[in-house]
């Protein structure tokens, strides 16, 4: 059997409002910017719901009805679920309808889409548990597969996941550790022999996620027929891991590009051959044997040409901002004030640090596209002003910082 594993990551951060140093110490409404179309979380969600979530879920539900073999996996950040519950319950319902088919698996991650794994293990575990809780409450699922924020992966993460009882981990199929090997198989982390690894086939995934609408691409237009044919050419492969942002469908690639038609046609083309099927990530982990070990002492992510954390932590502004934030952990948690803790956690979302990336000239396009700020410096200034306010709230509570 050969399986396609479609895994989509769904997430929206709580973007900060424009917040100056003169707000610090006075107002604490960091995430409320309904008057600013670039920063308003609610308006952005309105737009993405209309362009991406609603039409894509409708299409996915139809495919699940039409093809019993069709299956997908999703990771949905807690922050997005929070926003959907507040502002777009009909979108939440459409995700629940997918889940109710029994063929849409939810993957575990941190509730706040944070990089806490690298800064505080206990904070990280709290956020993973919070995510499990909301997934149980809204979808009645108990995930067995883990994905870390930005697919940030190393040997330690695999060991942690094994200890926490996960059967598998999702990571980037990066050449650094695959070397000559193909991502179209299941692997085992060298540090956690009782779990397995599913590695993103970034060439095939990026054909859809990044190149699909690019009319100057030599393979444009990409059809489901052609794509299925490429996959069929790999005779020995067991699994094709198509991992990408959910927002590829309708937001990054506009509906006019034909992306939803491609999605619709893919099961039809792929299932024409009897030994072809679809699997969720846990099914693949359970039913496919691993072919080798993966050793990743360094952290690998799914972003940029470097595939490391440099898009989030590569410059000193980013590192200083995140380190300052995590230094507040102990005194802040000790106060046991939920509004403070929740604000602090929402500031941990990786997107805030991504906006501060100064790699304009190589990876600049994609950073600019996903940033609500005019420049990475503006992002840093805004974030730090909010940080100053958070600190002042600690001081007001008698903490010396």
């Amino acid at each position, binding site marked *: 059997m050969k399986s396609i594993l479609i895994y989509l990551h769904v997430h929206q951060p709580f973007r900060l409002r424009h917040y100056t140093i003169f707000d610090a110490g006075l107002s604490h409404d960091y995430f409320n910017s309904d008057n600013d179309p670039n920063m308003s979380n609610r308006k952005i969600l309105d737009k993405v719901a209309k362009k991406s979530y609603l039409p894509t879920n409708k299409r996915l539900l139809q495919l699940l009805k039409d093809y019993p073999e069709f299956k997908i996996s999703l990771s949905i950040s807690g922050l997005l679920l929070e926003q959907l519950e507040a502002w777009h319950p009909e979108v939440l319902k459409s995700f629940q309808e997918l889940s109710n088919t029994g063929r849409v698996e939810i993957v575990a991650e941190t509730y706040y889409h944070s990089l806490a794994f690298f800064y505080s293990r206990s904070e990280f575990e709290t956020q993973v548990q919070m995510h499990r809780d909301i997934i149980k409450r809204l979808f009645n699922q108990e995930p067995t597969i883990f994905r870390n924020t930005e697919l940030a992966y190393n040997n330690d993460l695999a060991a942690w996941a094994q200890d926490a009882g996960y059967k598998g981990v999702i990571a980037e199929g990066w050449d650094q550790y695959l070397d000559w090997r193909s991502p179209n198989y299941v692997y085992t982390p060298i540090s956690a022999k009782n779990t397995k690894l599913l590695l993103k086939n970034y060439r095939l995934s990026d054909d859809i996620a990044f190149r699909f609408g690019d009319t100057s691409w030599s393979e444009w237009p990409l059809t489901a027929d052609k794509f299925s044919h490429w996959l069929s050419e790999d005779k020995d492969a067991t699994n094709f891991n198509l991992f990408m942002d959910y927002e590829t469908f309708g937001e990054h690639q506009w509906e006019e590009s034909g992306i939803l038609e491609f999605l619709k046609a893919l099961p039809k083309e792929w299932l024409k051959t009897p030994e072809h099927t679809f699997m969720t990530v846990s099914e693949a982990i359970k039913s496919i044997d691993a072919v080798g070990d993966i050793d990743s002492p360094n952290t690998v992510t799914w972003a940029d040409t470097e595939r490391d954390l440099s898009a989030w932590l590569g410059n000193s502004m980013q590192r200083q901002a995140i380190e300052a934030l995590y230094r507040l952990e102990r005194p802040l948690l000790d106060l046991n004030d939920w509004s403070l803790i929740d604000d602090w956690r929402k500031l941990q979302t990786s997107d805030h640090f991504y906006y501060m990336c100064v790699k304009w000239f190589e990876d600049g396009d994609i950073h600019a596209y996903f940033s609500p700020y005019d420049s990475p*410096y503006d992002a840093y200034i805004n974030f730090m002003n909010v940080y100053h306010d958070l600190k002042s709230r600690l001081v007001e509570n008698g903490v010396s910082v």
Partner: protein
Amino acid sequence: MKVLMLGWELPPHNSGGLGVACYQLCEALSKDEVDLEFILPYKAEHSIEFMKVSAASPTGVLEIIQSGIAYDSYKFIYSDGHEEWNDIYSQVRFYENAVANMSKNISFDIVHAHDWLTFRAALRVKQIKGCPVVLHVHSIESDRAGGNPGNPLVREIEEISMLAADVIVAVSHLTKQSIIREYGIPGDKIEVVHNSIDRNIFDPIDDHNAYRYLNQMKSQGYKIVTNIGRLTVQKGLVNFLHAARMVIDQVPKTIFLIVGSGEQYQELVTLSSDLGIGANVIFTGFQRGKNWRDSFSISDLFVMPSVSEPFGLTPLEAGFYGVPSVVSKQSGVTEILHNCLKVDFWDVVEIANKITAVIKSDVLRETLSQELDKELLSLSWSESARKIKTLYNRHLEGVTA
């Protein structure tokens, strides 16, 4: 190809960016094998080898004594012994007549004039020689008047000259739009050629900064925020001082260094004491040479809050001395410069917010200045010169055809 350049100033006898831009453009054009003769309104020693520099002395005038910067009145001493003071309009007429006379004995293909002071002369030359005329607009009257219409006599010269010109070069898209808006000149007659900067014109700084007092204050933890430019309404310094008041409330150890002279001098001095920040604002008057360089190098941050700045070279100069900038979005330089902080000139709170952020954060200052330095390496006048040479060729072909 030979070009007659008409300009009002060249370094070291310049009052600001106009002379620097003319000098560097001419140097780059001469490297591109364009033969140049530059006519100035005054006689002075220049150690310039790449072009001939002539003075347009009116008949019978032995010597012109400059009383101050290029826009002030000059004293003319005649051969018959009498002296007279001439204002800027008389000088423009003298220059025009002198250039007209000189042009009869020079052969050249094109006349290229920089800003309104030389535009009448350029049109007279066109009348006499029939050659194409290129008008290079470094600023127009409404820029210099800080968004007001400005002097009608100057507007008249600008409007009529630009209507009659064969081609207009604007130093930014912002300037091109101003020309279209103010004078209704068709956009297809206006080419945008951005100014640039060549590192070779900068003299290095030495170990002994001229501002001993500021050095002492820095060792006491003070930060220096600097503006260098004419003290005119165009430069937005009233907003700058209001922002300074807000910054000092946040960070009392801040000194604002204001380098330059101009008609707003008394107003600005009065305002700074009215705001209660007289002790933190230092006015140095016009500086050149070492004092000018040291004004940059002593600074932690440069601010150019101009109301309307056609280009604005000073943030690039500051960058050469390792100093990052806050620049108004109403400045042409922001069309080419990424690694700076951009603000609207009217947004006093945001100007204060960004200044505060930079002086409070070492990491922001360092990242800005490192990235700016990389960016400056990629700038040079040769690309701008190449564009202008292409324009010359196009219009010469038009003449011969």
